[in-house]
């Protein structure tokens, strides 16, 4: 675990750059992580996915699978991959300040 400076604050991240404490997250941090991962600007559709990931994680303790992301986030699978070409669940989790999803599906 290391610390890094994001959007003017010091946050703790794991080896892959996922925030280890979701409470340290804010929207400026999200935008900075997104831009570092090739996603700029964050549109309303991106935010819909990011907020869904984050809220599901905070409520249930685990990030949703790509299947439930496609079914219940309001953004279908095809669009998820258009918004986050390098992996929707992984990137939305990273940008949303929650740990990397551990599911295989």
């Amino acid at each position, binding site marked *: 675990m290391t610390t890094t400076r994001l959007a003017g604050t010091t946050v703790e991240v794991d080896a892959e750059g996922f925030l280890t404490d979701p409470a340290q997250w804010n929207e400026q941090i999200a935008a900075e992580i997104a831009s570092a991962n090739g996603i700029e600007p964050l549109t309303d559709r991106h935010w819909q996915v990011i907020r869904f990931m984050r809220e599901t994680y905070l409520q249930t303790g685990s990030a949703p*699978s*790509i*299947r*439930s992301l*496609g079914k219940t986030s309001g953004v*279908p*699978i*095809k669009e998820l*991959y258009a918004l986050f*070409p*390098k*992996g*929707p*669940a*992984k*990137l939305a989790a990273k940008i949303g300040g929650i740990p990397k999803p551990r*599911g*295989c*599906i």
Partner: protein
Amino acid sequence: MSDTIEKVSIVISKGSLEGVYPGLIMANGARMEGIEANVFFTFFGLDAINKAKHEHVKVATVGNPGLHLATWAGGVPGVSALVTHQLARAMEKLDIPPIPEFVEMIADSGAGLYACKASVDLFGLSEADFIPQAQEIITVGEFYALASGGQIIFT
């Protein structure tokens, strides 16, 4: 060569449930990591994209020592359907989709789905037998061309 995998081409050659799922999970998992993926369905693996058959893929209960079931018991009518049903319920709990939905999900994720021409000819099938997400019937040579620059995984 870079130390990350950027592209995989997965061959699914078996038509049992346990023969189909691993390849689908690997293809979906690749796309989830942003890895480019192609899936090539050959021999009985074609059932996974066959409109009439993809809902009826079953666990092989005969000749499957992993089930720890006597061979004669595995052959009793209905046993394969029962074991398949139990497994499907367990998978649903883990959010693993049934094969038709899973294949559609993988296609939507941007992976290419292809049918093997030799097998299609052998079984007397045509493009009309496959789900619309199956892009093309291709030869093994065309598969290698598609797989160029990536890893090939045979299941």
